[in-house]
């Protein structure tokens, strides 16, 4: 009899251990501390972002890196004279200018802003009208991200865990771009995270369910902006366990998820809205993934989470968000990116969101990496929205205007003017900077510009006869960069 009781008791205990301890509602929150393109760096830690490595066999892109690179870039325009090129490389009398380094910066900037097949076409608004300068592509076969199309034979990448068919074409197209290569030293990768942690924006994630936080077959994941700035501790790390409100703005998404052993996998949804990365206020907004999903691995003690959110995004949106963060030329001269090279690389690698009318892929597979620390993510007690300064609104209007011009140009293949007041084309920054340059008149006469300055220094549009012809058709062969080629 006693034996029967003992066996019964053991069975009850064993059953209890096999089931979730208690099926009760639970919630876990996180605030994102690291957010960026899921570009898997192939070099050793501590090695510069420019060095060759397993991801980029010839190192990072080096657009406009030095005088030789500039000569190469400018020589692609048949209409540019060698005299003009030499004057751009070393502006005559530059040593007499008060700000010689800025003179060169803006002269170079204006020059690279006009690389169309003929004069008068601003390149960053009309990238289709310039020849492809090439862009080094990732050659590694290992990538982070998702198998978005459920086909292990497409995508061309394998994850570090051995999952085949990873779709991350953005990595292939853009992963050798110097400012995003190597999260430890890539300028813009560092910058976006520094700015986020210093309060530019906050991304929060809330996971909830009714079973067990480590194993729940019916969990919910929410992701979106918080209007509350990230709190950092005395060592400048993102402090855990602070409270953040989550706002249900356009960039908010609620997803169903399953959790197995702490790994959260959401459903794949047609539209997944999350905040996009950025380092200036005008870059804030919706990432808008198609066929999007999210995956997070929660540490056993719940004190950290890391993973990815990804899907297909419109590649023209990605190009605009990066190119017009400031101006195309500033991204080029300062960060050694060429938005024209990226335009062609994105176009070549686009692999989703096929336009039924044209048959062209308007989307590209990609992912953002996420690392997060625990936080209390709560609903706002009263309506709240992400804070934006009035000055940011103006800047955002400028961004949207120039982005719209670029998309109109590319989709209609009709040259568009640079919207005045946006700063694009380094106008009127160049005119103001070279005011004391002895060769100023040469550049003012030779260079194209989005507008002109009147006698009082006011920006005025160009006269109609100074504008280029409207229709452009450049279907000539592009420089197709693949593998190691550049």
């Amino acid at each position, binding site marked *: 009899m006693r034996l029967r009781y003992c066996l019964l008791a053991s069975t009850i205990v064993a059953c209890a251990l096999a089931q979730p301890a208690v099926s009760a509602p639970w919630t876990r929150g996180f605030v994102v501390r690291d957010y960026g393109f899921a570009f898997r760096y192939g070099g050793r830690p*501590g*090695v*510069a*972002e*420019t*060095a060759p490595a397993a991801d980029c066999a010839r190192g*990072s892109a080096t657009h406009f890196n030095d*005088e030789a690179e500039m000569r190469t870039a400018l020589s692609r325009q048949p209409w540019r004279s060698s005299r003009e090129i030499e004057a751009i490389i*070393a502006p005559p009398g530059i*040593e007499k200018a*008060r*700000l*010689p*380094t*800025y003179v*060169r*910066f803006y002269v170079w900037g204006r020059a690279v802003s006009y690389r169309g097949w003929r004069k008068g076409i601003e390149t960053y608004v009309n990238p289709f009208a310039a020849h492809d300068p090439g862009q080094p592509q990732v050659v590694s076969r290992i990538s982070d991200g998702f198998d978005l199309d459920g086909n292990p034979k497409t995508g061309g990448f394998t994850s570090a865990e051995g999952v085949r068919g990873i779709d991350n074409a953005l990595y292939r197209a853009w992963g050798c771009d*110097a400012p995003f290569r190597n999260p430890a*030293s890539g*300028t813009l990768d*560092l*910058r976006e995270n*520094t*700015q986020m942690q*210093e*309060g*530019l924006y906050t991304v929060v994630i809330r996971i909830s369910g009714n079973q067990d936080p480590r194993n729940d077959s019916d969990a919910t994941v929410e992701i979106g902006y918080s209007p509350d*700035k990230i709190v*950092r*501790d*005395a*060592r*400048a790390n993102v402090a855990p366990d602070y409270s953040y409100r989550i706002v249900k703005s356009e960039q908010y998404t609620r997803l169903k998820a399953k959790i197995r052993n702490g790994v959260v996998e959401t459903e794949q949804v047609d539209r997944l809205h999350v905040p996009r990365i950025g380092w200036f*206020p005008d870059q804030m907004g919706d990432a808008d993934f198609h066929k999007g999903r999210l995956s997070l691995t929660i540490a056993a003690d719940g004190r950290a989470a890391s993973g990815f959110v990804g899907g297909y995004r419109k590649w023209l949106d990605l190009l605009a968000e990066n190119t017009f963060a400031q101006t195309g030329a500033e991204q080029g*001269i*300062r*960060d*050694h990116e060429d938005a024209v090279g990226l335009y062609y690389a994105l176009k070549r690698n686009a692999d989703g969101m096929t336009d039924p009318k044209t048959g062209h892929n308007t989307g590209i597979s990609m992912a953002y990496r996420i690392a997060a620390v625990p936080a209390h993510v709560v609903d706002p007690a009263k309506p709240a929205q992400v*804070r934006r*300064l009035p000055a940011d609104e103006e800047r955002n209007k400028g961004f949207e205007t120039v982005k719209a011009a670029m998309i109109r140009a590319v989709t209609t293949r009709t040259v568009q003017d640079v919207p005045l007041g946006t700063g694009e084309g380094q106008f009127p920054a160049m005119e103001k900077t070279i005011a004391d340059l002895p060769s100023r008149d040469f550049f003012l006469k030779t260079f194209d510009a989005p507008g002109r300055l009147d006698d009082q220094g006011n920006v005025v549009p160009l006269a109609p006869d100074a504008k280029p012809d409207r229709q452009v058709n450049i279907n000539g062969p592009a420089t197709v960069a693949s593998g190691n080629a550049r």
Partner: protein
Amino acid sequence: MALPRRTILRGMFQGATAVMAVPFLDCFLDGKGQALAATGQRIPTRFSTFFYGLGLTTSLWVPKKAGLDYETTVQLKPLEPFKKKMNVFSGMRVMVDDNPNFQHWSGNAAIATGIAPTKVSQFDSKTIDQTIADTISRGTRFKSVAAAASGDPKHCYSSLGGANTLPAEPSPLSLYTRLFGPGFQDPSSGAWKPDPQVMLQQSVLSAVTDERKDFMRNLGAGDRARMDQYFTSVRDTELQMAAELQRPDVVAKVAIPAAPGEMPVNYALPNVRAVTPLMARLGALALATDQTRVFNLAISEPGSNIFVPGDPLGYHVTTHMEAIDPVLGYQPHVAQYNIYSMELLASVLQELDAIPEGDGTLLDHSLVFAYSDQSYAKIHAVDGIPIMLAGGASGRMKTGYHIAGGGNAVSRVGLTAMKAMGLSVDSWGKGSMETRNAYTELLA
């Protein structure tokens, strides 16, 4: 023989008249050599700021060891002669709270005010030099003086708050003219007399003063506050004039040289190297002759445009464009520019330390607050922003330390500086940077 304390020597220096105050003789001082025997007044403690752009290379600037006897790092090497006379602060943080990190501005403004700026190119309060000047500059001809070594009068980060900064003298000649040109009377001169124009202006202000009470009585609260502010500034002007009507004490052994000639003043490093010590020398003379007790020197704007001739990028652009050297692990050209900044600071300290005064030098009776706008300029970071305090503040500041800030607010350094300058202040800064926690271990 009884010597008047203000006896001067006159002579010719390079064809121009030069005057020299007599050495500050021991007989003028008390037994400790720190105060005037006759009046018991201490030798005044002066305050200077030194602003330079674009921060540091952490791996080359920050000493590994904290406290005394820290190792001299590559980028602190130029300051080694002054190691025992200064404190180095690493790992300090600018906490921007609910404000953006304005590139090249937030760091500068936060260190100068203890407040993260809410607007770009504006200070949210009076800067530290002006707060200190309110206390220590009474009785001097100029409340403060500023100079810009790369030639732009806008390169001054001294402000009463808001967008306005006090204009800097953009050349050694203009600085000389302001300090020692028209209106300057050698305080040691027997012919010294109050300026009649100043006397006239003062009498006008006094007349206004007599009607203040009647006027104020008829105003509402808002207007009264405005008028209070106005009368405060009038009072400051009166004090300034009163100072100009009194002969200042001259306590140092200095010679006022002839006016410097015209010279190129711009961003070219060789010119900045020529101008900076010259401006520092003139500033030091102004401090030594008690023309002012606060001197601000900026070698550039935040986001420095200083360049080495032949370098097509210059300092600022290089911080963004230069890749990290794969072997060295840092940006080599940027690192060299960082060193140039430290060399220029050393040249300023050299000028202050070259003037004997009482039991030490002018530097010993000064506190120099040196700071920058960024830490890692490549990404506009403000964590780990460098600050240095040089000089003994007349014995109130212990020196020779490396303070590893460990993420502490930059306002702790400002509060420490103000306490060393003798200000009665309990807390400083605002928001996350409000602090009552000075580095008391540095205060004597």
